[in-house]
């Protein structure tokens, strides 16, 4: 009897674990499939800090915007960055707010600092996982091209963002690496 109760509880726990894993996957899959697509220009990276083994660290040119609702932010606080597209079709932060906007595309961010009227934030999508043997050459390729021709395609939905692909010029990072090998 006691054992049956334990088994029942165990089943509940197992269900919760499975549900969490599936929910996580679904949320990101949905963002990737139906989210709005933005292309973000990457910035040059600090070569001593960027190499992380199995992923590369993405840095972006556009990481700041003006606060539009008069909110005061401190370091580490959560804020919402409203994302727009400039004339060249590249993403930029059109404003920072303390609450998510009703209609515009936005992403949930952590505030870093405010300088010269612009509030800089940490974008949540800053890693790009690669197969183990590709990470080191990718790091070099990305570093050499970041800020010049490097861009990251990101899908945004409900404040979440997923990196779809990283491009060097017209090629995806993976294609670029295969070719340069």
């Amino acid at each position: 009897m006691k054992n049956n109760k334990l088994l029942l509880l165990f089943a509940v726990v197992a269900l919760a674990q499975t549900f969490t894993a599936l929910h996580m996957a679904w949320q990101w899959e949905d963002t990737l499939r139906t989210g709005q697509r933005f292309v973000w220009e990457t910035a040059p990276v600090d070569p001593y800090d960027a190499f992380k083994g199995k992923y590369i660290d993405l840095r972006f040119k556009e990481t700041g915007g003006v606060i539009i609702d008069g909110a005061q932010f401190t370091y580490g606080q959560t804020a919402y960055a409203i994302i727009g597209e400039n004339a060249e079709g590249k993403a930029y932060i059109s404003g920072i707010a303390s609450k998510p906007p009703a209609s515009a595309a936005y992403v949930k961010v952590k505030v870093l600092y405010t300088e010269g009227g612009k509030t800089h934030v940490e974008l949540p999508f800053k890693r790009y996982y690669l197969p183990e043997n590709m990470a080191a050459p990718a790091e070099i390729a990305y570093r050499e091209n970041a800020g010049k021709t490097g861009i990251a395609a990101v899908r945004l939905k409900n404040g979440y963002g997923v990196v779809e692909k990283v491009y060097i010029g017209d090629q995806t990072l993976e294609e670029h690496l295969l070719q340069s090998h």
Partner: protein
Amino acid sequence: MNKKALAALYQDLPDLVAKGILSPESAERLKQHYGPLGESQGNKTFLLVFGVFGVILVGLGIILLLAHNWPQFTRITRLAISIGLLFTAQAVSGLALRFKPDSRIWREAAATFHTLALGAALALIGQTYHLTEDTDMFVLTWMLLSLPLVYLLRSGSAAVLYCIGITFWVTNVHEQSGRHLIWVLYLLALPFYWQRLRQDRQANATAILSWAFNISLFISFGAAFAAAVDNLGLLLYSALFSLNYMAGMFWFNTAGEKWRMPFKIIGIGGSIACAYILTFQDIWRHLNVKLQNMFTPDLMLLAALMLLAVAGNIRMAQQFGRNSLPLAAIPLVTSAAYISLGFDASGAGAAVLLNSYLLLLSIWIIRKGIRQAGLGLVNLGMTLLAALIAARFFDANVSFLIRGLVFVALGAGFLITNWFIVSRRNTGG
């Protein structure tokens, strides 16, 4: 239960039955519960240790294999692997719970594997979608989802993994105020730990859990109160270590091998280390204690810990006599030194106070060791004394005058102690 304790229990059983404290049936049931003494017990322990270690290696291996990030896998394949791994782990745990609920080896190994597999499954999803920001969220989700396994499978190794996980979590949380959730996380695991202490205090698994819990607690404290620690660091830690030591004296002072009760060991080691660091005048000179406002959270925390330390000292004196106080009083001496900074900002006074105190403490420890013929204590005292002398000899920041005086005092103290012990021995002999 550990072998020695079991041997002692079995030795006492006939006597307990003869005196009518236990019925012969209860004694028989006890024997059945713990199994035969001797080699089979040892074998079981080996099987358990290697079983758990084997499972940890397999689990970590799976995590590494998945971390390779196979380019051939599509997103749906990755999801299938992730969920498949989770189902396998759940099946193993479910089977252990259903068919082997009394086998510790099965329960521990299944819970350990399940915990690691759950982490691997969640990490694979994170890798697929390039998730970054949430290292802390990921670990928190993992730990909360694996905590029930600790209780359902009564697994000490899963509890140790939980301790490691939440410690990792608290040191990775971005927002300072969010770190205090750690106390709730400890609270969630406390009933299990409490139960282990009550049921099986002398067991190896309980001892390992005690160590993990204790070390984790100190790291978490540093992370959760980082701002306060920056300001009043060593004093706070000194109070905390001392409370740990006193908790060890009050509640974990059972006879047996000392390593099984880490509270006293970590408490003594930490308290002495804090005091030792503060014997350097340089440390005091660079301390930037801000005491403008009496009601900052830092000071409230310090006051609370200090009140507990004072209360602990009073209880120590009542329970173990005044002789137990020299070690327990470290935070009180340290706070006196902090207060002295108000009068002497150079820190010379504070450093002299700590030096004198540690000198007396080391002599007291040596003396106690000689009295009890405890070589460990004598060595601890001698090491402390030697460390103190070595530090002062090379400490160029203290003026020659103070150095000279401290050295004379040290030497005199050493001679007097020796003379005292020898003469006492002679008169005693």
